[in-house]
Each structure stands twice: as C-alpha cells, then as structure tokens.
C-alpha cells in the first residue's frame, strides 16, 4: 500500500513537471514574445531590452526554464498587470482561490452525502417512490444549466423570501483571516459567528453547484448497486445469514463504490467550471471572475498561477481517487 502511494506520488511529480514545461513553452511562444505580451506592442526598444534582461530572456533556454521553475516554487510569478495592476499575482491567488475550493468542496460533499445513500435505496427498492424521485431529480439536475439554477435559488431563497444571503462570502463583520478559508478561519480563531455567516453564504451557491455532480453520482451509484446486487457473492452473503447491515456495507457498497469513486474524481473538473458561473451569480469573489479578467487583460502573471493551481487540483484529486480505489480494491494494490 505504501509503495503504491509512493509510486503514485512520484507519478504526480512527473505530471506536474511536464505541465510546467508546457506552460513555460506556451509563455515563450506568446505572440511577439513574453516581452511584447507584457509591455504591449508600442514599448520602446530600451524598455524591451531592460525587461528582457530582467526576465533573463537573453540566457540559454534551459537556464531560463530552471529559473522559471525556481521562481514558481517560491510563488514568484511577478506583478499582476490586469486583474489588480501592481498587486502580487500569487497574493491575489491566495486570497481568492480558497473561496472557490471552499465552495467546490462543500458542493461535492453535499452531492456525495445525498446521492450515494439515495442511489443505494433506489437500487434496492427499484421502482419505488424513492427510486422515481431520484431519477426525476437527477434528470432535472443535469438538464438545468447551473447558472440558471443559481439564479432561481438566489431569486427565491434570497431575494423573495429572504431566507439566506444573496451575495458575497460573509456578512461585513470583523473576522480574522488565517487561511482565507472562511469557515475554517472562524473555527481556528473561535469566531464562530464568522463561520456561521460564511456557512449561510455558502449554502445557495453550493446547492446550485452540487446539482450536476448529484445527478451523475446518483445514477452511477444506482446502476452500480443494481449490478452488485446480482453478484454471486451477495447471494453467498445472504446464504450465510449475515445481518442486512453487514451485507449492505461490506458486500454491496464496498464493491459498488468502485465506479462511483472514479465518477466523483471526474466530476471535479465539471465542478470547477460550474464554480466560475455560480460565483458570478452570487458575487462570491473566487477565482471565477479572476480567471475571466486575467484572460481578457492578458494578465499572464495571474494566468500562470491559475493554470498551475488548476492542474495541481486535478492531479491531487486523481491521486486521491487512485488511493481510495486501492483502499477499496486489493486487486489494484497488488497490480
């Protein structure tokens, strides 16, 4: 098991290096080169030469790459030119990325916590009310665009009925910032009203964002449980007279979860895309807006950070999926 994890970790490092190389080559191949990209077409030759030297562009390419990597590891990506001109790109990232992660994590936990039990019950009582309700909900979940659902939720629950806040991440109360994960910060500093406020702001966007992962995970769980219920080893478990609880957990769910885990991993990509739209509707202040703005203003410093961060999220999620797979299925471990 440990060897398996170490092997996967090394693979993960390899993937990140390959990605950084691609990023480096892309930055160098920007129209007119990095300097034009950063200074615009009309800069004087002197300014260009100065920046070129400052960026080390006159050195051999591999030296440039090593330096680029060195800076990247230290979080030095330079100053933002478009999103928040002059501010450090990595600082911007540190402030805004936690919002998106908090939202996405909350949404996926919500989706999993409802979809998996519901998928099991739906399969076990095929054709029952729960089954039909699950199927209809999941159809609606995939059919309705995330931003539209977000808008509906905001209109009814926030604006019309005033049950939950309509925008932002927290009420304007005095909160100490530690990690910029607001829920976590409140717990760490024992400012529980801050956590409570952050939680209330999180609910509507998280529900909107959870709709698609819920739908997909519910369907996969249901189908997978139906398959497993037909397996001979479940009949063996029944023949042993085991308690329902044991059969459900140890024999049915443990096997049925394998495809579900893979699906959850794949949903994370869709989740980040959905987060961008949801954040806009709820003015959530995550990387959604930052990404759009940095793109249109050619803020390459910020863009670099975001690309690396997104890649890191995917790689880490993949690692987690692989590890859970190995925990569940011994056949993966020994392979």
């Amino acid at each position: 098991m440990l060897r398996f994890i170490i092997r996967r970790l090394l693979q993960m490092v390899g993937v990140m290096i390959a990605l950084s190389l691609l990023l480096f080559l892309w930055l160098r191949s920007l129209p007119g080169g990095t300097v034009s990209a950063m200074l615009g077409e009309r800069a004087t030759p002197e300014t260009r030469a100065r920046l070129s030297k400052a960026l080390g562009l006159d050195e051999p390419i591999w030296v440039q790459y090593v330096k680029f990597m060195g800076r990247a590891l230290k979080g030095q990506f330079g100053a933002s030119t478009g999103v928040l001109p002059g501010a450090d790109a990595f600082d911007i990232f540190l402030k805004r990325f936690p919002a998106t992660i908090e939202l996405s994590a909350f949404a996926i936990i919500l989706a999993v916590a409802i979809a998996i039990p519901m998928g099991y019950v739906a399969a076990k009582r095929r054709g029952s009310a729960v089954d039909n309700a699950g199927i209809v909900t999941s159809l609606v979940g995939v059919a309705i665009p995330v931003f539209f659902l977000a808008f509906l939720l905001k209109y009814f629950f926030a604006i019309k009925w005033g049950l939950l806040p309509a925008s932002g991440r927290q009420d304007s109360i005095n909160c100490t910032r530690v990690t910029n994960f607001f829920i976590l910060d409140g717990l760490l500093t024992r400012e529980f009203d801050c956590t409570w406020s952050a939680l209330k702001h999180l609910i509507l966007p998280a529900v909107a964002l959870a709709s698609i992962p819920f739908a997909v995970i519910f369907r996969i769980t249901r189908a997978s449980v139906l398959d497993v219920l037909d397996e001979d080893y479940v009949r063996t478990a029944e023949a042993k007279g085991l308690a329902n609880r044991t059969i459900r957990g140890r024999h049915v769910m443990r096997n049925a979860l394998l495809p579900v885990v893979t699906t959850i991993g794949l949903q994370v990509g869709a989740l980040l895309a959905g987060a961008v739209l949801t954040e806009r509707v709820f003015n959530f202040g995550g990387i959604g807006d930052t990404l759009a703005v940095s793109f249109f203003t050619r803020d390459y410093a910020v863009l670099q950070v975001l690309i690396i961060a997104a890649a890191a999220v995917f790689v880490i999620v993949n690692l987690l999926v692989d590890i859970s797979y190995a925990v569940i299925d011994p056949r993966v471990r020994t392979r």
Partner: protein
Amino acid sequence: MTSPANDRRKGSDTAPLLTVDNLTVTFQRRGQEPFRAVDGVSFSVRPGQTVGLVGESGCGKSVTSLAIMGLLPKRGNQVTGTVDYEGTNLLTLSDDDMRDRRGKDIAMVFQDPLSSLNPVIPVGLQVTEVLERHRGIKRKDAMPMAADLLKRVGIPDPNRRIKDYPHQMSGGMRQRALIAIALACAPRLLIADEPTTALDVTIQAQILALLKELVEDTGTALIMITHDLGVVAGLCDEVNVLYGGRIVERGDRHPIFREPRHPYTNGLLGSIPRLDTVGERLTPIPGSVADNLPWDHACAFAPRCSQPVEVCTTNTPTLEESGGRALRCFNPVEVAR
C-alpha cells in the same frame, strides 16, 4: 465400508431432518405465461444422509435449493408447498428468523467459487463473519478458528491464507474456502449446488472426496445438486432425478445405477464416460429441454424419449412409489434378468 454409526445415521427409521413436500415455484414473467420452474417436488433428507438432485441444466435444481434457503428473489415468483425442518415450515418463517438459520442450521456451497467470494475482502474475514454473526464470537477470537477451518478443508499454510484475497487463490482452494465458510457453524444440513462444475477435472475429484469426508466426519446431511450422475455415484445414498421441474425417478444409489427404470435416467447413465466401457460410443440424449411437452397433459420427456407409447402424449404420468423406489413413467425400461 459402512461403519455401524453410518448405518444408524442413514437407517430409514430415523426421522427426516428436512422434508420438502409438494414444492412448487412459479415465476411470473412480464408479457408471458407464468413458468413453473419447480413443479410439485417432494423428497426428504435424514440426518447424516446424502441425497442427490440430478438433472440437466434448467430442470429446476438451483431454484429448488434457493427456495429451501429462502434466497429466491423477493418479487416475481410464488412458492407453494412446505419445507419442513424439524417441525418448522421454513417457507412461513419471517425474513429475520430465516436469516438466523441460514449459515447456522443450513448452509450452502455454490457453483462458481471465484464469483461466490467477495473480491475486495480477505478470505479470513469471509469465514469469521459467519462465526461473529451466529456464534457471537469476537473477530479477534474467530481468526484462529478460521485458520483451523481452512486447515480442515485442506488449505496449506492457513495462517497466511486467511489474509489472502480470493484472486490470490487457485480455483480449488477457493472452493475449499467456500466449504470452510459453509461448515463454520457446524450446520446440520449442507446444500451443494454443482460444487465442482466450475473446476478442473482433477480438482473436481479432490473436492468431492473432501465433501464426502467432511459430511461423514461431522454427520452433516448433504443435498448434492449436480447434472453429472458420475458425481452422484461416489457420494449419494439416495438419488432424485429431476426432469422439467418434476422428480421422474427416485431410489437408493445402487438400484438406480444397476437398474435405471426411467428412460431419462437410463439416457443420463448412457452419457457418462466409464472406465470399463472405453472405446464404446457415448450416447447423449437427443434433443433438448426446449422440446418439452407441458406436464399438464403429457410426459414432458416424450419428444426425446427412446420408447414412448401413445398415452405419453395425452396423459400425465404420476410418480408411483414401490419398494423404496419412485417412478414417473408409462413405459419403464425393462429390467434385465
């Protein structure tokens, strides 16, 4: 080689442990006529006795065993008749009461050892969980017992093997493990549904020998389900031959083998390879179950029978008992001598 103990156990004066009476299982199938997979089957098993249920694939052997175990799907079928286990009709027990008996009083070994074991948990746990469930033994204390059980079914190095997963074992070893699981709580009745069909020929013989030894040592009654009369020959005290969901012939092992009376039994005997008839052609029974006539107004076997008479396609033969044997046929095979 019959010890006095054996004679007593198998003697016809002991009260039956299990009596199946007029068991009928009907499957309701959407847009089709209901289908009677098991059709008025009656037989009994005495303590320590080994009873065979023999017949071609699809004749209702597995459905019979699943009905006894209460393991048929919850919906889409109707079960009638009685399955009496020492005075209790198992068919009327609640789900929970039946769950208390399965794996403890009655255990079962299935056909395919690979798919019958859970691939993602160690074999040891698959043994101990029965002990935990029915005997209330803690997992820690059950582990050495599991190792002992694995040793008893002939798995070498059992202390290491309890940590193995099914895919790390050979086919024969997996079937041994399943037998160990079935015998863990010392059930009084074991049902083995084609336990050797999925195995290599050499392994088949070993598994049969093991089953025979275990039921003789422990006095467990055994219902042996097989499509292969060869399996029955070495193992069973009594043989029930099933065709189209009904018993067509029953008798003790030796009389059945020496003098089969039903043309179907005779046909089955003609299609098993025997050492003393090397070179002779095997004669399989022509046709298939798809040719069956409905039992309601004919002998289902008539289209494939070697010696049908007119009445076979117009009337239903009944199961007639005489001299410890039972036979359902209008025109039985003549007994030589």
